[in-house]
């Protein structure tokens, strides 16, 4: 009898209940909140459900040595987490993004590329602010990339520059991407006049299939020659796009843009969520990262919209760009473009800005990959 009681006491010590602290409960509450937001409000459910459940997985109180936690070497979750830690999930997601993305809007009106470049100020604005708050340049670079509004890039860069902050950076990047429809519209309205919001842009010309085939090849060669450190992201992005546009690899393009990207999204979401173990995540640094992440989105939206207004000074009447598509320079595809369209239609129901906004939106993907390459080149 005594043995049974001893065994039960010993077993109790192994359970999550015995090892639980308030920190774990806070993180579990955050995980449940993410799942709630995804189901109730449909906020980025493809990301928030895996991340939210990952947070639950990562915050079951464990005792060391059980070899099941995400940070315990050789455990199942640790093996899956290698894709985040060693950075091979993000390029695979970029392959899928490339295979899904239609660059026609950009090819038909290539000046929209410049808006995608302007919005990258968000990254470097947050970088400078992070330095002011006492982060090291490597950490500041990893935090700044949140302003690129690109989850895979944020994970890729933080894995190399500041692995300890990766959980907070990834969760922050994905959270703010989900909150693009909340963060951006007030800034867009604040910076534009009613007249500017009513600008109707010329419809994009039809782009020939040859141009679409040339784009990924030239785009890749040029950007990779300029920033070779961005090779994994740029290479996979443009490769995926060539699979789509070549017209002869439909099966590969379908796999890259469908099952492959879904599998990697599940793995990246759940392991990033699981990496937010309370003892690693609940720190003052994480709070600062969330604050800087929000600021980087604000700066990116601000510079994108202001750049269009500035650019319009040099464009003839009839060729002017609606500044409401300036926000789409952050690369949250296609949410940022959808925000441009929705805000535009609030002022003119027949002014469909979606396709125009897709130009800077996909340019933002290229721009953030180039900016990421620069950060790696200077800081890694």
């Amino acid at each position: 009898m005594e043995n049974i009681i001893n065994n039960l006491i010993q077993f109790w010590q192994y359970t999550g209940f015995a090892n639980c602290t308030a920190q774990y409960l806070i993180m579990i509450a955050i995980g449940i909140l993410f799942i709630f937001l995804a189901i109730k409000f449909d906020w980025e459910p493809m990301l928030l459900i895996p991340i939210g459940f990952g947070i639950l997985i990562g915050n079951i109180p464990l005792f060391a040595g059980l070899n099941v936690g995400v940070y315990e070497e050789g455990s199942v979750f640790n093996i899956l987490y290698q894709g985040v830690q060693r950075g091979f999930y993000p390029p695979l997601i970029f392959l899928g993004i490339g295979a899904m993305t239609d660059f026609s809007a950009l090819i038909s009106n290539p000046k929209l590329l410049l808006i995608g470049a302007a919005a990258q100020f968000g990254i470097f604005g947050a970088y400078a602010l992070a330095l002011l708050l006492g982060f090291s340049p490597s950490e500041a670079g990893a935090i700044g990339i949140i302003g690129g509004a690109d989850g895979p890039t944020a994970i890729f860069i933080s894995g190399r520059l500041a692995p300890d902050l990766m959980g907070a950076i990834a969760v922050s990047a994905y959270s703010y991407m989900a909150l693009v429809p909340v963060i951006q519209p007030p800034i867009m309205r604040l910076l534009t006049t009613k007249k500017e919001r009513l600008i109707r842009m010329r419809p994009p010309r039809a782009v020939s299939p040859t141009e679409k085939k040339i784009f990924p090849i030239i785009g890749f060669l040029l950007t990779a020659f300029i920033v070779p450190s961005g090779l994994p992201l740029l290479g996979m992005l443009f490769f995926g796009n060539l699979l789509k546009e070549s017209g002869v690899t439909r099966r590969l393009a379908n796999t890259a843009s469908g099952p492959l990207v879904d599998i990697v999204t599940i793995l990246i979401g759940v392991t990033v969520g699981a990496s937010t173990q309370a003892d690693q995540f609940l720190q003052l640094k994480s709070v600062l990262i969330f604050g800087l992440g929000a600021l980087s989105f604000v700066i990116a939206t601000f510079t994108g919209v202001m750049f269009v207004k500035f650019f319009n000074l040099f464009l003839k009447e009839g060729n002017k760009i609606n500044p409401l598509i300036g926000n789409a320079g952050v690369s949250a595809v296609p949410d940022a473009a959808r925000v441009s369209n929705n805000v535009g239609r609030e002022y003119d129901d027949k002014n469909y800005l979606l396709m125009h906004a897709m130009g800077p939106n996909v340019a933002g993907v290229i721009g953030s990959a180039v900016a990421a390459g620069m950060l790696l080149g200077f800081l890694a």
Partner: protein
Amino acid sequence: MSLLLVSFGAAAQQQSAMRINEFMLNNTSDLQDDFGEHGQWVELFNSSYGTVDISGCYLTNDPNNLKKYMFPKGDLITKIKPRQFVVIWADGNQHKGTLYTNFTFAPGEEILFVGGDGKTVIDRVTVPNLAENQSYARKTDGKGEWNIAQSTTPRAANVTHTEETKSQKMARIDPYGWIMALTAMSVVFSALVILYLIFKQIGKASIKRSKKNTAASNAPASVKAAVAAAEEATGGETYAAIAMALHLFQEENDAHDEESFIVTLNHTDRTYSPWSSKIYSLRQLPQINRK
């Protein structure tokens, strides 16, 4: 319960990644052990990126007796973290603790690290003549040639790098981030401006070619003019008009404007019954209808 306990021992087994990395023959005033004594020591290095458990492996100075000293089992200090070091005291007094061997070594002898099977020699090195407090170490941790070390580095890398990291350099030359921001943004802009210029030219060439093809076709002049006009101003409205025309055409020529509302059930002879089909026994995935 037993499963829980068994999982404690599930560390990765990559004993072949262990290397003899450094040793000292004549220790008079170098590293001290826990008893304050100076003895011969051997440093092992885990060259892998996973934890290696060396319990059950052997260390010896006799190629004819590979099982001379076994690393004891059940002690956590035999689990060597990735790219980390462990020092073993070779003072011939095994009773002092886990990492104390039952032998010492002398010049001309070999030190051998043997796998858990007691047969596979994973690494070996011949002991040279060494002065007092001199250590013999690999030039690069875990691989490469051996030499007499300039300074001893037990439980540490044989070569330490003291150069400034890129991040430290940036912190020194650009504490506020302005240089980084301006440099990086100029590169981002340059890359996208070049891309813009290239695709502007490609676009012009494409439009020119398209016009040329239209002009060269055998279509009547009116059709050519219409195509040219459409190409000039192809937009959402044109496509919407085309789509509407196609829809109306389909509406007029198809039988779908009025359904027959007749349902016909056909009998089919087959041994397979849908009642036993797996797909009918699975619940449909729940869907949220949002309006």
